[in-house]
């Protein structure tokens, strides 16, 4: 804790003048580092203590002994494989549809309608502020009849939910490149639109697209409300129902496992780009 006098001293111009500037700056940095450490510990505790409690609970038998039985029993639980498969399926479909819609839209807005970018920013943030029930009703109104009654309807809802994150990720990626010049260079070399998008735009949007994919996969694998309202047994819904049916230890173990698996998937996706960033940084240093 910084004493009141120390804080005052930090902002006291007379003190700052009296001390050598470098020493003053070093003292200030130490103070910031100290506060940063406290924030980090508090945040870590906030996230890790519940996880630790959940892990302990899932490892405890009724007798109080530690056992992995809750984890080893997961694959044989009724409905687990179907729920996991559905969640993964929905994550893939949602990601493909969202990227398929948002990448061309963001590219078009950047190239042809740059003045409308603030409006698109506003529109794409709507799913965050609109209640989920309203979204479901909206999607039901416009969804093709053939999709109603299938889990793909849920994917459409997820597409709407993921839109703000995906649009922003792609938009940030587009802002980082000179899109107009790259597209014009491609066209002047004979590149048609599909080639330009596939060979020039998408590879240079890799970071944005990977961020969008990470966010969409995380959203779909963890989403509960929509799936529950639509009565589909995705993994989160299955975990909740399984918990209600008196299988607390196993459902908690599944939750933890799902968390770890999701985290690993996100890590793998991110590492594609990390490797590229490191390679580019190394190349820059070499140059």
């Amino acid at each position, binding site marked *: 804790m910084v004493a009141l006098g120390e804080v005052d001293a930090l902002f006291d111009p007379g003190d700052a003048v009296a001390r050598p500037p470098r020493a003053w700056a070093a003292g200030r940095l130490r103070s910031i580092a100290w506060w940063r450490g406290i924030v980090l510990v508090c945040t870590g505790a906030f996230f890790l203590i519940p996880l630790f409690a959940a892990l302990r609970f899932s490892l405890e038998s009724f007798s109080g002994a530690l056992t992995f039985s809750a984890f080893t029993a997961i694959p044989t639980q009724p409905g687990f494989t179907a729920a996991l498969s559905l969640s993964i399926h929905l994550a893939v479909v949602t990601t493909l549809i969202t990227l398929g819609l948002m990448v061309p839209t963001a590219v078009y807005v950047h190239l042809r309608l740059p003045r409308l970018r603030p409006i698109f920013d506003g529109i794409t943030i709507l799913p965050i502020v609109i209640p989920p029930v309203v979204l479901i009703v909206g999607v039901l109104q416009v969804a093709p009849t053939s999709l109603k009654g299938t889990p793909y309807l849920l994917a459409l809802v997820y597409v709407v939910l993921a839109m703000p994150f995906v649009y922003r990720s792609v938009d940030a990626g587009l802002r980082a490149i000179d899109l107009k010049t790259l597209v014009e260079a491609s066209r*002047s070399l004979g590149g048609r639109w599909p080639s330009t998008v596939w060979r020039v735009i998408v590879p240079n949007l890799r970071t944005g697209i990977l961020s969008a994919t990470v966010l969409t996969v995380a959203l779909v694998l963890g989403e509960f409300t929509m799936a529950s309202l639509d009565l589909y047994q995705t993994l989160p819904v299955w975990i909740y129902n399984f918990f209600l049916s008196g299988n607390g230890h196993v459902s908690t173990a599944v939750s933890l496992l799902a968390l770890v698996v999701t985290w690993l998937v996100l890590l793998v996706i991110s590492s594609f780009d990390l490797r590229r960033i490191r390679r580019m940084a190394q*190349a820059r240093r070499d140059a």
Partner: protein
Amino acid sequence: MAVTASDRRHSTDVVGAAVEMTGLRRRFGATQALDGFTLTLQPGELVALLGPSGCGKTTALRVLAGLEMLDAGGVLVDGVDQARIPAQKRDMGMVFQSYSLFPNMTAQDNVAFGLRMRKVGAQARRARALQHLERVGLASEAAKYPHQMSGGQQQRVALARALAIEPRVLLLDEPLSALDAKVRLQLREQIRVLQTRLKITTLFVTHDQEEALSMADRVCVMRAGRIEQVDTPSMLYSVPATPFVAEFVGTMNRIPGVISGDRVRLLSTEAAVRPSTGAPSGPYASGTPVDVFVRPEGLAVTPSPQGGGTVVTTTFLGSITRLGVLLDEDVMVYVDLPTTADPVVAGSAVEVTLTERDVMVAERAATPGAAGSLTP
């Protein structure tokens, strides 16, 4: 730069197209970017579009490339109307001002991109890309990504990429403006050598008059979407058609004078009024005050205590030294002397005389202080 076998082959079989741009008009909001722009390029010719920022030179180039729509007018390439031909089918190589290499591709892949779009087989396009990189002296950098190369190298790769598709017209949109002076000079030479060797019709946009004058067969000076003059660099410099061209190209003194019959009086002497398109539609009446345009090399100084001029600045410019002379009535003129001539020091009293026999005149500028000014 080495002449490759490919160069020799190309020097005989690659000939640029004839380009005709007629009555081009393009408006962006309140700005008339092109206002009846008409220009013809002969096959194999390098024409520079020169003008201040916003004069429409890049718009004209982009219209030719098919990257900009037209409000009116037409573009013919080898007699074929380009109105309905999209950019990707025009066969025009383009080098942009900003580094436009694809960041996700190596130099070789960048150069091969246009060939890939033309369905050239993988091996053939790699070989041809390497040839073109060799042509710009960058074969050893073929495997490098754009971020691993300097700005000059990137623009050379961009040039190789534009040439690799064997374009009928080469479009250069201020390709040297982002480079430092030394690299700019080298690349300027390289572009000119390649263009001459390959005989590609080239339109080169620049706001740098030195670049335009040193590289182009003809220079087209533009202002406010219109052409002021199209001519060879030497004619543009020695016989400017308008006061704007006179002041925009090279260095020009604007000295007050008075019309006397078909001559003009200035600096205690007289000179014939040069006929030019920028001259008044009819002869000026005797006694009309005018501005006379004279290059610094068209003036001379002689030491004279009663000469009416005082040297206030001397600037060493290599083979010449430029004197700034303050005349009576606060008129400042600049005079170029060979550096080897007798040195004239600041503070010397001199007489400034005219060495040209005929001069260009224009109506006296209304702006105070405009007369006697120098346009560098």
